[in-house]
């Protein structure tokens, strides 16, 4: 694998600020970014990435690879939880297995955003429709996870109130990150089409600040991830292994699908990152509410304490190498 890619990724500001956050926790510093400041950055990043995706989608349209790619992305978010569940069921009860499985079927927007930053420094283009894929992969895994709970553990839930499906669907499809992402994408689309003069006025906010805001946010993510690492003793070797090997496996599947779809390298990397990343936002929030029997410190710590850092630090350049190796060279 291309070690210069790893190095370039390691030495980019977002990853370095992530390390700084990790170091702060490890050395016992009192560095913290108090609530709700991280929320400001996370709202901003979703708004900006959605808006940008919308602008680009308006230019590229819905033809060509767009719909097949989105369909494949949604398909993966349905499939990954199923095989993850079967594997996890070997060691865990249905509640925990389903919650962890759903986590890995969904995606991490920040990993996606970091991958976009990586592509930009590599001067590799990518398309706006990948943001639509990102948005549409958040929710299905939540539904699959809950179906799995229902199928696998009905007998253990005698007293549980019947599932409140309406509330659940709202949580899956209208939670704040999905709504902000999709809303900003649609706004970007509309503005690019009907109010091009105002696009230029948005860019200093939505584009130019983006990379710095990402770096600042990753400083916080480093702090939070490092705090989570402590919980891993509880998780044990099986789950730590799962948190690295499952993304790797999913990335291989993702590369093969990208090849099948004929994606350009930039889009292929983003597709692979979507397959390989795990949700620590929408899914844990939904699982906490609908499957309280599962232990949140397991699935959050795995997604945030292992898979996220792995993807940010070695995953992205590694997946780039996979893409470069398995995709037909454009020459």
């Amino acid at each position, binding site marked *: 694998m291309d070690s210069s890619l790893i190095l370039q990724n390691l030495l980019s500001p977002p990853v370095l600020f992530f390390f700084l956050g990790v170091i702060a926790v490890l050395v016992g510093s009192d560095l913290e970014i108090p609530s709700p400041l991280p929320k400001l950055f996370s709202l901003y990043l979703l708004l900006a990435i959605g808006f940008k995706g919308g602008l680009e989608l308006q230019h590229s349209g819905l033809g060509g690879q767009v719909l097949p790619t989105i369909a494949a992305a949604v398909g993966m978010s349905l499939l990954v939880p199923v095989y993850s569940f079967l594997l996890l069921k070997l060691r865990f009860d249905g509640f925990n297995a389903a919650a962890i499985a759903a986590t890995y079927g969904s995606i991490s927007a920040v990993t996606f955003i970091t991958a976009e930053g990586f592509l930009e420094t590599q001067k590799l283009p990518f398309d706006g429709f990948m943001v639509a894929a990102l948005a549409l992969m958040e929710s299905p895994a939540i539904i699959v996870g809950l179906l799995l709970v229902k199928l696998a553990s009905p007998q253990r839930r005698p007293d549980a109130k019947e599932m409140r499906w309406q509330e659940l669907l709202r949580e899956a499809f209208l*939670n704040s990150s999905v709504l902000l992402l999709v809303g900003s994408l649609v706004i970007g689309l509309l503005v690019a089409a009907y109010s091009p003069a105002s696009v230029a006025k948005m860019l200093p906010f939505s584009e130019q600040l983006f990379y710095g805001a990402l770096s600042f946010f990753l400083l916080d993510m480093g702090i939070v991830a490092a705090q989570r690492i402590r919980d891993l003793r509880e998780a044990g070797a099986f789950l730590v292994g799962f948190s690295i090997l499952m993304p790797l496996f999913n990335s291989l599947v993702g590369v093969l699908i990208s090849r099948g779809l004929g994606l350009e390298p930039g889009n292929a990397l983003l597709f692979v990152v979507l397959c390989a990343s795990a949700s620590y936002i929408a899914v844990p929030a939904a699982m906490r509410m609908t499957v309280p029997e599962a232990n949140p410190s397991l699935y959050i710590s795995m997604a945030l304490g292992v898979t996220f850092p792995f993807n940010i630090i070695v995953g992205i350049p590694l997946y780039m190498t996979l893409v470069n190796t398995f995709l037909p060279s454009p020459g």
Partner: protein
Amino acid sequence: MKRVDLILSERELDAVIKAIDAAGAPGYSVLKHVTGKGPHGLVSDSMDFSGLGANAHVIVFCPEEVLPKLRQGIQPLLDYYGGVAFVAEAEAL
């Protein structure tokens, strides 16, 4: 009068408030961003950005008659999701 203190996850707040209203309490007060520890482990606010949130502290001053209905609405939530509820005496200043 009685004073009821409820501490539980912010995510169950809507359901708790519904139960308080249903029990006929004359009012309530809510403090968010409470961290803590209980039988289910540590709760911090470092995941706040993710929508997971921390705990909420709900205070209800109410006449003793309200307690049974309050208990009935709240207890299932505490049993299922965790959290604590305590009662003490209080008199108007």
